[in-house]
């Protein structure tokens, strides 16, 4: 760090810096004890699951399986990211799974029967998602029907619409290479490293400029060491991921080489950055949390509550469309079951496991990704262990219940320790 930065009093000496770091750590612990657990349960869960499954079957920790995990979890993670927006305002969207099926089916029909180029087909799918969200949101907000009922009705209706679009349930194959690459393709090795450098540099620039700004304005700020540690941690984590994914993971390298960061990782990363920005750095995001926390207060403060709520449904359904596209790309086909069976429940589970609250007012995009990882790891690990689907459903259900329990308990703690 250059010397022109004004050092705050508490970081001028080394002892002072150590004290500041310790104080920061204590603040964090106090927050956790007060019920603001953040990503802690999900991260702990991921580590624990990796240890257990890694011990049960070494294949789980193989590079090939790591790449596989991203592909398996991507569709659910996309839908979960959208669901977070609806959960924040205290609503639910039970139709997100089949909405993704409808949009995927539309894309498949646009690609094959209508002969559209792939960008148009993807645009059609996302536009359909936006339209679905507008319709659901308008019904919930303007007619005042509980979202649970509206989206349950849509859940049934969309199931039928998929059948109609797919002409009584035919399976449509997707042959477009670009669309298939979304979930199946890999980056070149150098592309992965370039992306890593750009990402870490951007993150570091943002963090450091923010830190300098806050020091300059004399606002409360984190110790410099903590900022650096966070940047270093992200760099190390991403570098390890890129390194592992750049290793050869083909069973038979002479026949076909399989290396590089999966394209779907980039897709998830870009969506994560986009929606995190919207949630935390824009007025709309702030208003979402306000509506979820106390809609009456938001209304009195001049927030356009109805518009914010409809927008949340639009984002949710649009992200369901993205999830549908990813699922179709991975399967290279669309059938009446795309987005069906347990996709919705896994997505809701992912968001809740990550830390979104079913009571509203709480949730982050990061939560959806971490929760999605937990769900994907459970399914993948138990599949490798040869446990049958019955056990897998049971365990996923138990984990969801546990996550909801943690949420309810952390609310209880917040109330117990927070207000005097």
């Amino acid at each position, binding site marked *: 760090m250059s010397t022109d930065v004004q050092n705050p009093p508490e970081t001028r000496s080394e002892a002072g810096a150590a004290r500041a770091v310790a104080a920061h750590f204590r603040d964090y612990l106090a927050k956790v004890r*007060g019920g603001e657990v953040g990503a802690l349960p999900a991260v702990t869960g991921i580590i624990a699951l990796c240890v257990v499954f890694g011990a049960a079957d070494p294949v789980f920790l193989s590079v090939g399986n790591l790449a596989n995990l991203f592909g398996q979890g991507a569709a659910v993670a996309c839908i979960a990211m959208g669901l977070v927006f609806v959960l924040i305002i205290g609503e639910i969207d039970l139709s997100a799974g089949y909405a993704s099926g409808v949009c995927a089916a539309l894309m498949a029909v646009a690609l094959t029967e209508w002969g559209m180029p792939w960008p148009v087909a993807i645009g059609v799918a996302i536009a359909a998602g936006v339209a679905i969200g507008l319709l659901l949101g308008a019904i919930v907000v303007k007619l005042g029907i509980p979202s649970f009922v509206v989206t349950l009705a849509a859940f049934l209706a969309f199931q039928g619409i998929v059948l109609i679009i797919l002409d009584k349930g035919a399976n449509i194959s997707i042959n477009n290479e670009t669309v298939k690459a979304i979930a199946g393709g890999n980056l070149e090795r150098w592309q992965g490293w370039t992306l890593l450098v750009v990402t870490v540099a951007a993150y570091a620039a943002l963090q450091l400029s923010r830190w300098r*700004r806050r020091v300059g304005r004399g606002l409360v700020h984190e110790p410099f060491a903590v900022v650096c540690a966070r940047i270093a941690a992200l760099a190390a984590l991403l570098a390890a991921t890129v390194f592992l994914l750049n290793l050869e993971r083909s069973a038979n390298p002479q026949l076909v080489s399989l290396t590089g960061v999966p394209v779907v990782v980039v897709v998830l990363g870009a969506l994560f950055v986009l929606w995190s920005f919207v949630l935390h*750095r824009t007025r709309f995001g702030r208003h979402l949390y306000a509506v*979820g*926390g*106390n809609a009456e*207060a938001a209304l009195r*403060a*001049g927030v356009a509550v109805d518009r914010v709520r409809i927008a949340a449904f639009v984002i949710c359904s649009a992200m369901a469309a993205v999830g549908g596209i990813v699922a179709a790309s991975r399967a290279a086909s669309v059938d009446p079951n795309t987005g069906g069976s347990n996709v919705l429940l896994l997505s809701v589970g992912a968001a809740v496991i990550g830390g979104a609250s079913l009571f509203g007012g*709480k949730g982050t995009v990061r939560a959806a990704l971490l929760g999605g990882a937990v769900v994907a790891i459970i399914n993948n690990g138990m599949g490798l262990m040869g446990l049958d689907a019955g056990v897998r459903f049971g365990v996923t259900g138990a984990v969801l219940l546990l996550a909801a329990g943690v949420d309810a308990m952390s609310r209880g703690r917040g109330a117990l320790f927070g207000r005097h």
Partner: protein
Amino acid sequence: MLLELSRVSKSFGPVEVLSEVDLAIDAGEVCALVGDNGAGKSTLVKCIAGIHTVDGGTVAVDGRSRDISGPRDAAALGIEVVYQDLALCDNLDVVENMFLGREKLHGVVLDDDAMEQLAAETLDSLAVRTIRNLRQNVASLSGGQRQTVAIAKAVLWNSRLVILDEPTAALGVAQTRQVLELIRRLADQGLAVLYISHNLNDVFAVADRIAALYLGRMAAVLDAADATQSQVVELITSGRSGEVGLTETNGVRP
């Protein structure tokens, strides 16, 4: 006079809730509004705040008659209301709550640092020392701290008249005193304060003048220094106390 209500009436259907109410509040004074349940206190506040429109009479600010037809009109005139149920979002922090609905932007991006600085300055100017961390969620604050945030939020906007709806109703003794001190400070800084309360001890502790509503009519407006508690109680319960008050209190105007 900063705010002057003359002959303000308001009916909901056949029910006349306010009947030709007169009230004037000047800058730098705390005017307490007292009255029994159903006397029309909340309705009067909502008329001033633009949530209800008045049916008859005029609302004048700075001597000019104004048409306040929404909360935004009221805010534009410098009128801010701190509601009884606080209207804070538990899941947002102190700064986020203070700027809710009026966030400072840098392009499309929230300018959180500028907002935090302004919030800190406002709290400083009110000599608030009970809130140390502006980035903690409001859920973790005590009742008095929450009330302080709600009041500071109202002061942030160059407001000139702050209306407080039972700000001490849910507070303990020490916290009540803190909030009352804060109210006094608002007036000392040149703001007009309309303070609604059921607690006459609090009213006498902080108010310069006391306006008593009785069944939708203004029974009397007294100087707090000249009034006694029993006098105010009589005005609240029967609309009349000795020589002051309504001359005819059974619903027929004199």
